[in-house]
């Protein structure tokens, strides 16, 4: 990576913006699922990736991990570690979405941020933003990139390492 690019990715301002945006997204994503665990479990079932009992466990625990990591990102406490947790979750969601798409399973509401039934045609937000598909993959890849920058690129002017050293 060139010095200029590396320097840009270590910018304190960039880190602040990415951290707060990612944190807000994950807190927002967790709330509807925490409010209605069985509704979220029904959505996890539709992905058909884990089996029924592991899906139950994922449905009751994942939203809380999202909430805790999101809050830590927003307040800036253990922020790089919270970013690693978010990166791990995003990577897992991407693998699961890949399995769903490869098997041709139609999941109309991915359960990413909402547990309500999918919107009617023509409604806002459009249905292609709700289901498991390429929109979800691209969005998660962008967020994964942000989480990796936050987790593994030390802010310029600090003495923190990249986190990659043993």
């Amino acid at each position, binding site marked *: 990576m060139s010095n200029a690019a590396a320097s840009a990715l270590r910018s304190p301002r960039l880190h602040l913006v990415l951290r707060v945006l990612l944190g807000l997204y994950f807190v927002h994503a967790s709330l509807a699922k925490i409010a209605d*665990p069985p509704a979220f479990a029904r959505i996890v079932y539709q992905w058909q990736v884990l089996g029924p009992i592991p899906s*139950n466990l994922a449905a*009751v625990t994942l939203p809380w991990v999202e909430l805790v990591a999101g809050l830590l990102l927003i307040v800036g406490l253990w922020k790089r570690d919270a970013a690693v947790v978010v990166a791990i979750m995003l990577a897992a969601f991407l693998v699961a979405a890949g399995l769903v798409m490869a098997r041709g399973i139609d999941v109309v509401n991915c359960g990413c941020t909402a547990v309500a039934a999918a919107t009617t045609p023509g409604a806002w937000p459009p249905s292609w933003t709700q289901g498991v598909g390429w929109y979800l993959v691209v969005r998660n890849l962008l967020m994964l990139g942000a989480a990796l920058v936050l987790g593994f690129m030390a802010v310029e002017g600090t003495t923190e390492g990249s986190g990659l050293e043993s």
Partner: protein
Amino acid sequence: MMPRRRLLRVACIAAAGIACGLVWNSLSGRGFILGQSVFVQAGDEVVSAVEAKAWLDDGALFLDARPRDFWRMHRLHGALSLPEDDFDNGFSEVEARIRQASRIVVYCQGYGCEASHLVARTLRERGFPAVVLDEGLPAWEDAGFTLDTESRP
């Protein structure tokens, strides 16, 4: 590799979230039973594939709750179509057989499919002894039982 201190913090964040989730599920009043399918409600009865096979051999009626096109492609031997998405029409077609049946097993595509639970519940509300095949067709095949793959009109 990440330093041990960072790994420990990552594990702490995950553990805190998991603990909160489990406590919330058991204490908030919004949770559900983790040891069974979320589709199972009070009063529902679920049978395993092995048990259902014994019932089938004993003359039980099997109903396929998937959309009709799936039933046309393949089904359990002797199963009739009663699609959840077209229940009323389907019911009038198979009502005579349902009334004769002493045992009724409803199935659909697998653990991610709620249709069999909805159809069985509606049948029970109408007074018929309907139960659900646990985890549907994949469980049936996993147990080593075959499907009828002759296409139907």
